[in-house]
């Protein structure tokens, strides 16, 4: 007779051991990308289904979190843009960043009361293109460096820098429009 282990007592599968610590993180990213719980769960679920047959490969990945982030991003780009029929918006205006002047950036007098500011930031963020949401999520929120994103997203640093600048500029414009 087998004595069944109680919850948490059974050795987890390799896949579960590898992936489970990252699920909340992946969901958080997916939520930022998609903007709602349902699509975020679907995105993460589809990713896990896609990765499960590759669990042997996962064991060999040195830095699993960035690797899975890239996979999530690609899945989002491949599937969820089509699903939502959002046009792909790639901005390659690299000169934009280098033309930045101090007056273009956020200034402290734009700071509002805490809750109101966050609400307005949230609203502006949600109105960004998916490209911009992805980049601000990975770079500004999750803290990935440009050189890391270069390999993760297979995009040159200059292009990333330009897009991030444009994303912030869009947010700035939207926030300014709210005032």
């Amino acid at each position, binding site marked *: *007779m087998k004595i*069944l*282990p109680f919850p*948490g007592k059974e050795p987890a599968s390799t896949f579960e051991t590898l992936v489970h610590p990252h699920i909340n993180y992946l*969901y958080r990213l997916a939520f*930022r990308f998609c903007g*709602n719980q349902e699509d975020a769960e679907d995105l993460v679920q589809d990713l896990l289904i896609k990765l499960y047959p590759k669990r042997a490969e996962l064991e060999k990945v040195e830095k699993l979190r960035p690797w899975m982030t890239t996979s999530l991003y690609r899945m989002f780009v491949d599937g969820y843009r089509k699903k939502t029929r959002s046009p792909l918006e790639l901005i390659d205006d690299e000169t934009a960043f280098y033309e930045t002047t101090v007056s273009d950036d956020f200034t402290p007098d734009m700071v509002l009361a805490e809750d109101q500011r*966050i609400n307005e930031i949230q609203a502006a963020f949600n109105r960004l293109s998916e490209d911009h949401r992805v980049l601000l999520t990975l770079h500004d*929120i999750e803290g990935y*460096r440009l050189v890391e994103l270069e390999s993760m997203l297979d995009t040159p640093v200059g292009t990333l820098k330009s897009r991030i600048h444009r994303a912030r500029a869009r947010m700035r414009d939207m926030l300014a429009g709210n005032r």
Partner: protein
Amino acid sequence: MMNCTDFQNHIDEYCRADLSPEVAADSEVHLASCSECARAVDAHNIFLASLKAMPVDGPSEGFAIRALRIAAESEVAGQNVGHHHRRGFMVGFGSAAVAGLALWVVAISPQQMPVTSGSSEMARVGVVTNVATNADKRADKRIPEFSIALNEQRDIKLAFFSSEDLKGATITLQMPENVALVGYEGQRKLVWKTNLAKGDNTLRLPIMATSVTGGLLVANIEYMGKVKTLRVNLSVGVTDVAPDVAPGLSGRVGFEMRVV
């Protein structure tokens, strides 16, 4: 000498403290003499903090466990469940992989159990193939009942009998209000995956009665999208009670369900 444009080009790296010592030093010199760039740094930090403060609605309850389970089951079933996870993932799994599998639940008295332990009481859940009876109708009318004294800790054993190895079966326990699961106090619902071996599988539940009321313990076993349920009435008295199961529970009193 760093100017404003130079500084703005690496304001991100400055705010992340990700500059080389030389550039960082030049930046500090510039900021000391440029109030506009200093204000830009403050504003940039506020912007980043605001982005990070944006709330994220949490996933639905049990999402992580459910997502892992569906991922594993999707490979077994050889199906892509697509975007229908929450709308009932079980719908997609009653296919060829489990064709012919039937599940039944049965409760028997301690004397009939293959393994007994002190005063433990046992209900038995079976997973067999190709069993066809009308026992399900009887099961609805004959829910096993176990008695326990208030504040007493006792073990209930659930036995899961399987005619084959089942990898990744899911057990769900729904505890009644009058009984706590020792070690999991405050949790009314527990869900976890386990592997059933061919033959008898035993799950020991240490329970503690917390109030003098009746209550129903519900145990689900789910495999390949098919769910079987065992219900056990837990009766709590103020004094010590006999350990035996309720009369009339010997032999099979469970139900059977064919997998379609």
